[in-house]
């Protein structure tokens, strides 16, 4: 069953002209508001209990997409349906209930916890406010939650600065789990951690998935992490989905030239003394993305058509979508 569906979702950030710019426009100058298409016409769905990995480089819109799914940002266009219901069609009470079901875990375990609150308040505030537990049961509820996340219940009266990075990550996870969500959006949740701590947190995510039947949208730039954790992988480039397929499939037979290049360049333990052969060029600014296929200036297979028409996502194998003109004809 589909737990989450996105249809033609876009997010534009508009930077209006400043005063000088508005005057210049009034005088006939060719000045316009700066518009960033952070997410550009994205559609996908997530099955219940599935782990979907969302991969891309900086500025590709993966975090913006995650924030829209978590309800922190509203899409500029398109609909996001959770369990078949569009959030905008619900009344206030229903919307609040629905919003609790999707929780987000943030990248920076230092910035995402209020330094002046105790762990008991950080984790316990939301379930109390939303009436999930009564105040007299809160203590037991928190103990259970902290143990589940691998923390000692004795940590409750402590402040965030008394913890290491890995422990803070666990507090962030406990906070998200406190309102009994069904769906977790993890935005680079392990990127700031050391390798040995990262492994501990990834194991915790997998444990929670088994115990609580959670569904994940796992946003990361680290292909190794995504490969390990995900059932399905979605690759984004400059606001658009370029490829999506089951994890084994995408790592075994990547179709899109960007995915191929990305996979080739991930440093791995087994590739020794390699000749690095980088993709040429930089990621273009999302302020003025190239016309047609966004990847064409860096693509080794670019054709004239790629400069004019953006290729649509089409199925290249069962459940394997890719947006590239090479797949036609």
């Amino acid at each position, binding site marked *: 069953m589909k737990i989450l569906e996105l249809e033609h979702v876009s997010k534009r950030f508009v930077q209006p002209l400043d005063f000088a710019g508005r005057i210049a426009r009034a005088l006939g100058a060719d000045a316009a508001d700066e518009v960033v298409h952070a997410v550009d016409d994205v559609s996908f769905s997530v099955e219940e209990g599935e782990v979907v990995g969302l991969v891309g480089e900086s500025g590709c819109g993966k975090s913006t997409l995650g924030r829209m799914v978590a309800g922190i940002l509203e899409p500029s266009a398109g609909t996001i349906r959770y369990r078949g219901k569009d959030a905008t069609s619900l009344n206030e009470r229903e919307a609040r209930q629905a919003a609790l079901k999707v929780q987000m875990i943030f990248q920076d375990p230092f910035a995402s916890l209020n330094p002046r609150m105790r762990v008991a308040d950080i984790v316990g505030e939301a379930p109390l406010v939303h009436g999930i537990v009564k105040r007299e049961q809160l203590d037991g509820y928190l103990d259970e939650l902290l143990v589940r996340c691998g923390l000692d219940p004795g940590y409750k009266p402590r402040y965030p600065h008394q913890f290491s990075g890995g422990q803070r990550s666990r507090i962030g996870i406990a906070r998200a789990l406190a309102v009994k969500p069904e769906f977790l959006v993890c935005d680079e949740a392990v990127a700031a951690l050391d390798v040995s*701590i990262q492994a*501990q947190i990834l194991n915790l995510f997998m444990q929670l998935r088994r115990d609580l039947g959670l569904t994940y949208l796992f946003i990361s730039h680290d292909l190794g992490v995504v*490969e390990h954790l995900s059932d399905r992988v979605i690759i984004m480039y400059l606001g658009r989905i370029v490829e999506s397929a089951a*994890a084994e499939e995408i790592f075994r037979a990547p179709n899109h030239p960007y995915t191929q290049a990305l996979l080739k360049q991930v440093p791995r*333990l087994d590739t020794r003394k390699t000749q690095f052969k980088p993709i040429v060029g930089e990621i273009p600014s999302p302020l003025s993305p190239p016309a047609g296929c966004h990847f064409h200036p860096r693509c080794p297979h670019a054709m004239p058509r790629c400069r004019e028409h953006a290729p649509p996502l089409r199925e290249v194998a069962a459940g394997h979508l890719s947006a590239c003109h090479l797949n036609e004809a």
Partner: protein
Amino acid sequence: MRVEDLKTHFFTRAGVVRAVDGVSFEVRPGEVLGLVGESGCGKTVTGFSILGLVDPPGRIVGGRIIFDGTDLLQLGEARMRQIRGARIAMVFQDPMMTLNPVLRIDTQMVEAVRAHQDVDASTALRIARDALERVGIPSPDSRLRSYPHQFSGGMRQRVAIAIALLNRPKLIIADEPTTALDVTIQAQILYEAQKLCRESGTALIWITHDLSVVAGLADRICVMYAGRIVEQGSVDEVLDAPLHPYTHGLIGSVPSRNRRGAPLAQIPGMTPALVNLPPGCAFRSRCPRAQPRCTEQPELQARNGRLVRCFYPL
């Protein structure tokens, strides 16, 4: 260059932090040495110590750093300034912090050249231009007149590397230079670094927490834990058959080494605080092979042509 028994301690109010405690290694011309470890293991302080950049309350309390036959620790600050930037250069993690935001790239580069070479301004500018070209910056002539904020993160890191190259140093110390960069940009920087060592015979110490990066780049690896080198050897030996339990655990934690979906082999616990570290092997509380004897401090011992600091190696 050869580092012998280097000790850099920080004297804080809470106690003595032995950030680097008896580190020894050497790098040969044209060689890439990977210095690997997790945060707080002393890898950055090792790099800073070589260049004499340790600030109080930190102090180098022992050891020798032999570079080209001279002990850098015996040199005065004036002599050290001549070496720093000219014969040993450093590339830092965050290029925005190393470049001056209010000066154009050409100003900064010409200054760096003329600090160490007796050349006129136009020659210095030509040297700067050539350095930019060598690290793969397109249209170096016009880019020289740009300010740092006009470059992207990857380009800024290239500029930082170009500045390190200006005086044709014999040794470059690179501290996590690709950690802040995207995968495709990281690959470009690794490519430039590799080309550089091959072509100019510059030795490179690449400090990183990411084993996968050094796997493709380095010739030899030193693994550091809590201020000490715990294992040292060639890339293939260390990564294929680690001897120290910590190296073994670190490699096991890398997701791509594990079966997909299976729990990752994790190291329990966390890295110890370095303040007043108890004697003995610092890893013993997390180590699956720990024995009562591990409360004594193990020495680095040679084993099959490499070094390991463990009583019970794998």
